[in-house]
């Protein structure tokens, strides 16, 4: 499984890319592979607020619907609307396609996320 070094990870198989006070959130290669063919992504709205571990959206594969859990607390700044028409890009490249970007509420929460090495370990 592909686990890029520069990202942070949650145990729920999401990745976080931090740019200043902004964090891009997506699902990992392992997540897309486990889900199978992704056919629908339910996105939140810009301005929605989430606490860490809240459900912020849903990814649906052919077989099943799976909740997306916020890895950190924050306010939604952007949503990737391209996923509405082409959800399958998450299967093609899970790291090139972020799902939402949030304004971080508490940068300290980032310390609770996993490094690439630690995430790779839990996939073993």
């Amino acid at each position: 499984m592909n686990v890029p070094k520069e990202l942070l990870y949650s145990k729920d198989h999401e990745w976080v890319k931090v740019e200043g006070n902004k964090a891009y959130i997506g699902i990992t290669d392992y997540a897309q592979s486990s889900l199978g063919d992704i056919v629908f992504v339910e996105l939140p709205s810009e301005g929605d607020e989430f606490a860490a571990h809240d459900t912020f959206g849903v990814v649906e594969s052919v077989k099943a619907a799976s909740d997306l859990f916020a890895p950190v607390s924050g306010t939604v700044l952007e949503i990737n609307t391209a996923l509405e028409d082409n959800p399958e890009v998450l299967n093609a490249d899970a790291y090139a396609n972020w799902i939402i970007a949030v304004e971080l509420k508490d940068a300290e929460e980032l310390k609770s996320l996993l490094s690439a090495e630690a995430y790779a370990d839990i996939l073993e």
Partner: protein
Amino acid sequence: MKKTPLFEKHEQLGGKIVDFGGWALPVQYSGIIQEHEAVRNAAGLFDVSHMGEIEVKGEGALAFMQNLVTGNVAKLNDKQVLYCLMCYEDGGVVDDLLVYRHNAEHFFLVVNASNSDKDFEWIKGHAPTDLHVENLSADYAQLAIQGPLAQTILQELTCFPLDEISFFHFEPQIQVAKVPALVSRTGYTGEDGFEIYLAAADAPAVWDALLAAGATHGLVPVGLGARDTLRFEANLPLYGHEISREITPLEAGLSFFVKLKKGDFIGREALQAQKDAGIPRELVGFTMIDRGVPRGDYQVALQGEIIGHVTSGSYAPTLKENVGLALITRGLVKEGEELSIMVRGKALAAKRIPLPFYQKRYKK
């Protein structure tokens, strides 16, 4: 979990193994959509060894079968197959099944895996004591090869001219890859194809031979995921979804397979009464207008009132749309009219569309 004789093949092929009603079976190999498209455009190979096989043999077998199932078994010829249902006295469904007639005193029944023990008890419980009823599920492996190129591929492994097996007919014993097998032109995908019943011990070699023969024709192994999307698009019912203990075949739109005039059978009185009184619910097809994927058991609403539930729903790979089947109060929604699907607490707009979603391409 129970394993079919092909479990190791599935692991070697990278199948993603899941627990399917107690059976360890692959939900997919390469991916559900890719496997689905292979069956629609070329061919796919399925391990359906989990299905149950029950033999009914002896004097009086025909009369017994005629009373057991909804279809007219008396009209079957030898080497013909009938799709029908077994009902409870109240018209609810015990199971749907295929009835293979070897002759008037010998029938071979193929039932759903999850129901096979219940079915066997039901059949045994209604059979006269001198009739031989045996659960052969453990002895048999079953493969299905489905798709427009299924015959071309299977023909490479048998001398028997497959053109001579017409739709819903079978040959009780032909050689496939040098082993004896029962072969019928049946399936659960909406495509032409065959189902092959053989001794469990022979299954791995025949599986390999089929994949090898089909390699140049685009044959791929297909898991349970695509088996479900294929049958769903063709609107072939699935027990526990479109039909169940609580849903009669008439409500599920299967009146064609219920021969009320053939004479008595278990459930006939209740079904006739339901027909006379007016069938209360109907199975309708719908496509989503709002964004969302309908799933089994989601509620269906009309102007805020719950009118039924989704029996099966999915992204349909051939249609490239999110569609569903819903069992709703009869007569409320016409084709082209809107209904609401309750998805995670939200009422999403959908529109009733004609069935079937996918026109079956059987070779008759």
